[in-house]
């Protein structure tokens, strides 16, 4: 074999390798079909992964063209999902628990954020409430069928009380503080950003109790009961969220700036809530337990008109997550 033959063989081998790599690259970046997807996103910093994903174009390399339908409160997002107005929505685990009791045709694809301090118990400072026992007979404002109502019942339960022992007043989330200002209620249980607004508005008048460990709220991606196409779309949405969450972990300052800009919120507010947030994608047994225990509690305390708690697994669809981050899925198949 001469030097020429050897060089020729080497060049041929290199060319073949380059062609193979090129084919692999092209097949990887082959334009997938793009599905238009509308997501009802709750206007809260809990939806940070969605805003970041949009800002860093994380959905560009996936099979979906995402459009956001921004709504106030998970209830409205849920309603839009069930009405078929949107393809996906964001929802808290509490809402999932209440809606599962109604037997609505929906599924949860993934949990993307947790906060252990989103729902807060705020009372009039002058009332000097020290423990849940002090709430007996008091007027408490909550939002019906949400984490707010569940939180109240848990708070009372610690002292063996139920909602029967207090006077519960139902408000829309943004109206809670108005009820308080109007002296219609003595305490109220808002979620963010209303906890922060209340603090800003009524500083010195109110007392925000340390209830950090009492409630863990998670935000989840939901859709109507999924067929294969919906799972495919969910998979692509989760892909985008995964990229966004990695970005949030490595670029927290930039991520905060994105959310502040999207929601038009102050630095004070983002700094108020951010330490309570844990951004991670998952679909595990604890979500099922959490939803189940909240549903059981709702039935037991007659918060809901339904008597039976369905199998929560019915409302969990792990197919999309299993394709993207299988090690973050820990539920019975």
């Amino acid at each position, binding site marked *: 074999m001469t030097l020429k033959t*050897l060089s020729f063989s080497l060049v041929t081998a290199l060319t073949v390798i380059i062609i193979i790599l090129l084919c692999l690259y092209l097949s990887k970046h082959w334009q997938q079909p793009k599905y238009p997807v509308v997501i009802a996103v709750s206007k809260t910093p809990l939806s940070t992964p969605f805003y970041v994903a949009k800002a860093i174009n994380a959905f560009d390399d996936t099979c979906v063209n995402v459009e956001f339908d921004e709504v106030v409160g998970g209830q409205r997002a849920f309603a839009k999902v069930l009405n078929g107005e949107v393809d996906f929505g964001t929802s808290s685990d509490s809402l999932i628990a209440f809606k599962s009791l109604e037997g609505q045709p929906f599924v949860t694809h993934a949990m993307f954020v947790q906060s252990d301090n989103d729902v807060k118990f705020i009372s009039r400072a002058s009332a000097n409430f020290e423990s849940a026992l002090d709430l007996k007979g008091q007027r408490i404002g909550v939002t019906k069928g949400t984490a707010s109502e569940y939180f109240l019942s848990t708070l009372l339960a610690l*002292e063996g009380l139920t909602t029967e022992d207090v006077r519960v007043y139902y408000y829309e989330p943004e109206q809670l503080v108005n009820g308080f200002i109007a002296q219609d209620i003595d305490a109220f249980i808002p979620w963010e950003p209303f906890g922060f607004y209340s603090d800003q508005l009524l500083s010195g008048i109110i007392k925000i109790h340390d209830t*950090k*460990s009492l409630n863990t709220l998670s935000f989840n991606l939901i859709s109507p009961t999924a067929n294969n196409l919906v799972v495919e779309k969910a998979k692509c949405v989760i892909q985008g969220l995964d990229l966004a969450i990695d970005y949030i*972990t490595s670029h927290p300052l930039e991520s905060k700036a994105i959310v502040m800009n999207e929601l038009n919120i102050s630095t004070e507010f983002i700094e108020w809530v951010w330490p309570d947030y844990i951004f991670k994608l*998952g679909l*595990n047994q604890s979500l099922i337990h959490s939803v189940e*225990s909240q549903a059981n509690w709702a039935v037991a305390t007659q918060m809901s008109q339904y008597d039976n708690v369905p199998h929560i697994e019915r409302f969990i669809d792990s197919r999309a997550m299993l394709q993207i981050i299988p*090690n973050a899925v820990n539920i019975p198949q």
Partner: protein
Amino acid sequence: MNISLLQRIAFFTLGCFVLFSLLIGSVIWSSQEIKAAFTRENYAQQLTNQTNMLRQLINNNNIYDKNYSIYNKRNKVDDWQALQVKLSSLLESAPALTTHQQSIQSSLVSQNNNLRNFFTLINKNKLKNANVAIKTHLKARLMTQLESIRADSFQLSAIAEKDIYDTIKQQAFFIILVSSASIIALILGAFSLTYIVRKSLNEVKSAFEKNESGDFQHIELSHHSQEFDNIVDAFNTMNDKLSESTISLTEMKKIVEERTQVLEKLSKTDALTKVANRRALFERANIEFSRTLRGNQQLTLLLLDCDLFKNINDDYGHVFGDELLVHICNICQQEIRDIDFLARYGGEEFIIVLPNCDLNGGIETAHRIQRSLAKNCLTIGDKEVKATLSIGVSMFNQRHKSLEQLIHDTDQAMYQAKRNGRNRVEVHSYTSLH
């Protein structure tokens, strides 16, 4: 660029050293990575175990019992406080984690704080005012919290396992890649070195061979290297000097051959007439005689003698006599065939060997020569000098045992012509035609 072979070998060795260092470095790096991933995996496993122990404790113990204490006086290893402290300190002693794992670690720390706070809250007054439903529910909340920690630990472990798998895969790919590159570089390097040395040696060897035959040429190397360039420079200088002072063997051979040819020609040629001499005659005539003997072919000889040549010499001088002999030779050469052979037999006698020619052919040739001579007389001044030839003809037959006998018969025939009045053609043993 002129690189020495030594430099080439040095570069080659250095290249191999770099590649192998890269390989060893990557193996060390990946073993560190795998070790770190195993540490993380081990950490995650410990977390899972610890969480499971706490789950068991919550499941087995009646945490609402009024006598229940988070401190177990009899068995300090198994109480809630001990397990919780162990879990917390385990979380604090987390090894270096990847970005993805760090977010899970934050989740774990937060979940653990919640677990601790929540347990403290429900244990504070043992829920003495609560009914069974509340107790069950809050215990379920506690379990959910633990389940959440377990799921995170599980995910942490799964990521570590995936890291180990990915690192091994990546390392295997890298080792294969670097090894392939090393092997290709080794083969290519060794081959190119061998090729250059062999090619240069062949070029030098071929130059030596040429020198042997006296061809002092310059060596032009196809591949330059300092070592061979030095040899070639010395060789070329030597060849320049040699070619200046030495006649090549080829040239010498050529000269000798030329001279030999000239000498040979001279030794077989008659100095005056430039036709073959007696020696050449016998050589050629013997060959023809042998061929005639072998092939049963015909062979005829003519013996020509210039009539009264002595008188011509006396009358016109020896120079003219010599001219006449040359003239006769020219006439003969014109009249004979290409295969015929003319030679000076001696004095004014010539023999013509006629292969493949019968007696009549010989007689015809003899007459043709006589006629041509008669037609082309030599002149001296204005005077034409008529010269004639007496020609004896003899053809080979069974009686002739040797060339000499044939020549003898021809000679007899020539004398017969002389005797019969000159300027005649006579055939041996036959009656004269004229």
